[in-house]
């Protein structure tokens, strides 16, 4: 049988929850015995996805954000989902420096950071339905997981 471990959290899309959520994912990922840099990369990528859900998905209204994590041998999969506005043009949204909210000091680097710090980033979105950002990263390859 495949050796896996899963967890799921749901929380309100309030900016004060950003720190809690990325730390929760990072804490779960420590079971793979990652190195510090891998944990920091994961925290940054998760923070970007959550911020997008709050700022763009829900446009600062308070609704639910769901994070699902799955650990397999030396790899973490994280899915960050909102049920908000959705993205019209995913390809455009993922271009570095592109932002729909320059006036709000958004840098347009969110997806670029997710792609820089994770091995794989996939976006599923439909206008009016919401967005799921699916990210994968290999970590802790020096050790045996779930010991």
């Amino acid at each position, binding site marked *: 049988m495949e050796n896996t471990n899963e967890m799921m959290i749901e929380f309100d899309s309030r900016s004060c929850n950003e720190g809690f959520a990325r730390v929760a994912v990072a804490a779960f990922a420590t079971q793979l015995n990652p190195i510090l840099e891998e944990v920091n990369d994961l925290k940054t990528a998760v923070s*970007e996805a959550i*911020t997008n859900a709050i700022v763009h998905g829900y446009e600062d209204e308070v609704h639910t954000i769901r994070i699902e994590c799955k650990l397999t041998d030396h790899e973490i999969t994280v899915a960050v989902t909102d049920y908000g506005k959705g993205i019209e043009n995913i390809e455009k949204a993922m271009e570095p420096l592109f932002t729909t909210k320059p006036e709000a*000091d958004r840098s347009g*680097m969110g997806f670029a950071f997710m792609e820089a710090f994770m091995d794989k980033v996939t976006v599923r979105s439909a206008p009016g339905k919401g967005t799921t950002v699916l990210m994968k990263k290999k970590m802790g390859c020096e050790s045996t997981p779930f010991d």
Partner: protein
Amino acid sequence: MEEAIQKKGNRLMVTIPGELDHHYAEQIKGVVDKQLENGSIRSVVFDFRNTTFMDSSGIGMIMGRYRLLSYMGGSVAAIHVSDRIMRIMQLSGIHKFIEISQETVWNQKRK
């Protein structure tokens, strides 16, 4: 967040909290922009000595203040930047616009 800022002549020193994400970036933006309103500030220095985490919201906040200051002929700098935060800044390209110093706090204190 008011306690994070210190005015020295026309320079504003801003102590960045432990984690500079969207939540804290918005708070810092609020207090800094209030100080910039009267137009006497010519430079803003962001002190990262306590900071271990930053994401693109931090970059957006710094770039926004850089834009405001450069209209007025002012400048923005970041000091006591850790290796991790330096990497984030370089990845974003912000290091082309603002002065960044990595000098450690340890050295600073011994002066």
